[in-house]
């Protein structure tokens, strides 16, 4: 099945190495400790080029979301639910939410991993509301 592959380079390889290893890695400045997402070569807080990462707890909250129905998305059976997830560490990322038909802003999510092949593992998210919904 065709799948949309991300371009990987020096600024992003660590993230994909992380998902393959079952870790959600948030880029972090080794000099001042500031977290950011998406990654980039410079620290936006202190201008250092000393990049590292922190492994996220893998929990977050829905900031916004969509239900994609049309047109087709390569490698996906529609509809799919995609969210902007505010990680508890304070950065935001886009992720597919699996196992749900719909969502609400404020829902709690937990990360999981969808291994496509040796070259690509995508982070996905699942509902983790304590009370369920």
């Amino acid at each position, binding site marked *: 099945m*065709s*799948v*949309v*592959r*991300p*371009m*990987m*380079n020096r*600024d*992003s390889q660590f993230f994909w190495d992380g998902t393959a290893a079952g870790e959600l890695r948030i880029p972090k400045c080794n000099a001042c400790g500031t977290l950011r*997402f*998406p990654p980039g070569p410079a620290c936006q807080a202190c201008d250092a080029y000393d990049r590292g990462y922190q492994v996220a707890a893998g929990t977050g909250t829905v*900031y*916004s*979301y*969509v*239900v*994609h*129905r*049309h*047109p*087709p*998305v*390569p490698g*996906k059976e529609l509809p*799919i639910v*995609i969210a*902007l997830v505010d990680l508890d560490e304070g*950065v*935001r*990322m*886009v*992720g*597919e939410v699996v196992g749900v038909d719909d969502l609400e*802003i404020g829902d709690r999510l937990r990360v999981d991993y969808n291994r496509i092949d040796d070259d*690509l593992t*995508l*982070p996905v998210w699942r509902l983790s509301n304590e009370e369920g919904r």
Partner: protein
Amino acid sequence: MSALSGKAAIVGIGATEFSKESGRSELQLSVQAVRAALADCGLTAADVDGLTTFTMDTSSEIAVARELGVPSLRFFSRINYGGGAACGTVQQAAMAVATGVADVVVCYRGFNERSESRFGQFSLSAATQVNTNGLDNAWSYPMGLGTPAATVAMQARRYMHEYGATSEDFGAVAVADRRHAATNPNAFFYGKPITLEDHQASRMIVDPLHLLDCCQESDGAVAIVVVSAERAKDLPQKPAYITAAAQGSGRDQYVMTSYYRDDIGIPEMGVVGTELWRQSGLGPDDMRMGILYDHFTPYVLMQLEELGFCKPGEAKDFVKDGAIEVDGRFPLNTHGGQLGEAYIHGMNGIAEGVRQIRGTSVNPVADVQHLVVTAGTGVPTSGLILSA
């Protein structure tokens, strides 16, 4: 007033027919639109010494110049970021003619955006480009978020949550656009107005966006001729003076996915607005009407707020009761917009702004002294103030 204000004017506009299958090359479309625009203002290819277009355009300036028979070019330029380039191409032209770098600059955009490469489809290649755009897209496309409608829906959902706007509020834009298109013989949806009920009944594309929140995919081309205000006096058409021309990009800016900043709306349009008002010495109250880029209806509401026509969250009230229709308080997109007339990446909207200044629109608004035109939103963008 800035050094640019009033120094340049749009004197010619031209277009092909707007269709779903042009039956000819994108280059031919652009060349035909440029010829039409030159004929509109009594100039010929021999007068042209500058060309500007979009980075996305598939027809190079030299290819267009060859087909036209332009003897030589002194100025050529391309603007990045999809539809955000529209007014930027005119800004380039205005700066060139105002400074004497060029005398006659034509801005063009032509594509078979329905019959060939459809922008509404999911792009497999967007996230694999080996450049920073590819890197940026790597954080959304592989996750399944990769159509324009989907990326906008993400912002729209949050906007609804924050301000209580509803799908019906978005629908007011679609109804206004289609009403205007219904009386425009050049519009694809000529003779086909819609009701708010039609909007609500149209299928969901990406919740919360219905089909009728999304612009068309179109084949066609538009061209715009810019000369100095001095030169404009000698040409046959009433000039549409360029009172302000601005570009804007916001903090932590991305292309369609500026999701990682506190404000996931369109603050880049606020940058454009601030600059338009600074350059012109005018304000929102001086604008009689607007042509606001409408690839997706929620962005029209957000633009009204960013440009200062109303406060954040109040656009849903601003657009009520036909206020943005041709006989309303602040008419928008009187050609039918990109939902109703055609999606020519905003260039057809600039042409409509010129027609309103000339008094030749099919949906004329009375006493237009100044109007605002904007380019694509969700991306680094641009805008113009055109004046009689």
